[in-house]
């Protein structure tokens, strides 16, 4: 047996990016072989954050799982609650009040906005533009303040529940949301100047990390990664949940396929989220915010299986929920977009990449390790 040229110890250097590595998002690692500074082979290692959520959920009541699911994706937890709630509502046949639907959509969009702000800034941060990263996270903090006011928590909100949301909007909330949006919007042009119009940023991101359009179906790519390569997939449009069918928006799509395009997609997603939040704020109807649920400690969701999907900031997010009609779920399987982005796609994209672009490429996929590992 000959030596694999991609991992020949004489010709290559064997390196780990992560888990303890500032260029890696979250706690995961990429094992790579370099020839010079060019990657010849890459293997993604995940599982550093594996907490056995799916096992734990089988051991907990249906409603007890809400605090668990939001921890599956740290930067944007609400989609998990939403997705899980959608599945339960579908299985149990619960109707959600109209107002709750609007509020849910509001929460989801705010979460998306926060996440996209961080990811857009992070893209700059990973090529060394620390200022961009700082600004992005600062803007996100404004949104987190709103969450705190609405739900009582900055990160893990546990706000959505089957049949509605936990609380109504506080007084004056809409005004404050507008204030925050105005504040962010005012700073966005400066943000653009710093990042998107920066010649060096363009040099670093254009033509790098190309996701070929044919990979979209082959790998099942979703979200900005797919939409940066010409796809128009967006669950909000394709299979509208909550009130997305009542909102006026176009799916953001670009065709550049490279990191720069993905940054643009993310930037336009920010605009889209802001516009959607504005629409929602203008249209929230009055009414109850939650349906009355049976005694939750003895609540048995009817037997059945459902695969619920929502659109997260990183793309389609799915929950495969199986109920056997007992107090606890039989099986919950979470399918986060990072699953394919960070494992097979990243391993493929990194081959031939420069060491300088490894974290650049990885960040452009906005991988979120906990949703792979759960």
């Amino acid at each position: 047996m000959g030596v694999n040229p991609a991992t020949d110890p004489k010709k290559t250097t064997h390196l780990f990016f992560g888990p303890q590595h500032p260029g890696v998002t979250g706690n995961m690692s990429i094992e790579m072989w370099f020839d010079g500074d060019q990657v010849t082979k890459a293997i993604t290692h995940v599982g550093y954050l594996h907490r056995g959520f799916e096992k734990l959920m089988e051991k907990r009541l249906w409603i007890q799982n809400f605090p668990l699911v939001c921890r599956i994706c740290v930067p944007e937890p609400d989609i998990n609650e939403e997705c899980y709630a959608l599945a339960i509502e579908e299985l149990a046949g619960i109707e959600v009040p109209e107002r709750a639907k609007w509020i849910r959509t509001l929460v989801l969009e705010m979460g998306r906005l926060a996440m996209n702000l961080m990811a857009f800034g992070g893209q700059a941060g990973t090529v060394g533009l620390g200022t961009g990263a700082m600004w992005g996270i600062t803007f996100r903090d404004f949104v987190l303040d709103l969450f705190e006011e609405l739900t009582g928590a900055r990160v893990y909100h546990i706000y959505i529940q089957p049949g509605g949301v936990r609380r109504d909007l506080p007084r004056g909330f809409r005004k404050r949301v507008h204030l925050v949006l105005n504040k962010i919007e005012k700073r966005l042009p400066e943000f653009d100047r710093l990042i998107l119009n920066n010649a060096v940023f363009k040099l670093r991101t254009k033509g790098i990390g190309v996701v070929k359009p044919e990979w979209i179906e082959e790998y099942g790519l979703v979200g900005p990664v797919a939409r940066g390569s010409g796809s128009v997939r967006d669950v909000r449009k394709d299979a509208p949940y909550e009130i997305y069918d009542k909102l006026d928006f176009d799916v953001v799509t670009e065709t550049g396929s490279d990191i720069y395009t993905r940054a643009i997609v993310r930037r336009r997603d920010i605009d889209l989220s802001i516009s959607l939040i504005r629409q929602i704020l203008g249209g929230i109807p009055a009414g109850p915010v939650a349906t009355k649920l049976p005694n939750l400690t003895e609540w048995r969701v009817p037997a059945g299986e459902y695969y619920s999907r929502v659109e997260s900031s990183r793309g389609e997010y799915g929950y495969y929920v199986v109920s056997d009609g007992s107090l606890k779920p039989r099986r919950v399987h979470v399918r986060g977009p990072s699953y394919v982005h960070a494992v097979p796609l990243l391993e493929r994209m990194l081959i031939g990449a420069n060491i300088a672009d490894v974290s650049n490429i990885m960040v452009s996929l906005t991988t979120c390790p906990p949703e792979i590992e759960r």
Partner: protein
Amino acid sequence: MLSNIMSILLTVFTALVWGLLLGGISRTVTAKIHGRMGPRVTQNFIDVWKLFRKTSSIHHGGMFWLAPMFRITGAIAVLLMVPVVVGQNITYNMSFAGDVFLLLYIMFFGCLGMALGAGNSGHPYAVIAVSRGLAQMSSYELSFSVAVVAIAVGLHTFRIEGIVAAQQAGISSWNIFRFPFASAGALIAFLPMQMAYPFGIVLAPQEIPIGPPTEYSSRFLSLMFSGRALFSVAKLLFFVNLLFGGASSWLSLLLKTFLLYMYTVVVSSVFPRFRTEQSIKFLWLVPTTLALVDLVRVML
């Protein structure tokens, strides 16, 4: 003789303090650009002291052990080769012993030592960083040496005292006005020299955390920080003497070095990194061409 030694000690001490202080100030300024308060300006002193007093440290071999000393020696050697305050001959230190060529080459002393230490650490990131750094160095040194040669030939002297003395006839006699293109080239080359972005490819934390000093800890790191502070003051001093007419007093020295340093800080915080080859190409193209304009002017 004694006064010379006193002057040398004073210079080194001042440079160390000023270098660390400048580092602190630069962190504050960067923080302000980020929209933060930033650390105390004395933060670097605290860091250096803390690192110095860490109770354990590791080394990977002789060169690893010696590298910080190489670094500090190189920095002090450059510092002492440059006149500090124009007119006060006592502060000219050792500058009689060499000219700009010597200065250009002795600058590498510390870098080479650092690179050797990094190599001895056995860490691939450190070595990759060194390979990047050397590749980049070979490009910015091209533009820088073109600029220096243009200026030196234009002024008919290689002696730094001579270059400074030629700029004492008012602001318009400063080389930055007499040789605007060469100065522009040199100032661009100054950015990679200071490892400022967009040329900061050596200490790229997201790519090769964090380059040559990745294995250095504790007291080694403390010395390395001091060496870096000294070295940047030495480079600032060289540039002030080369382009900005030298410093006629300690106050103007502090002011000029401060402003020059702020230039790198401000540029640094609004640019991402180049990739190595982009950096090399840019440096070959832009600053070198600029400096060549003045060189051609001088030749004609």
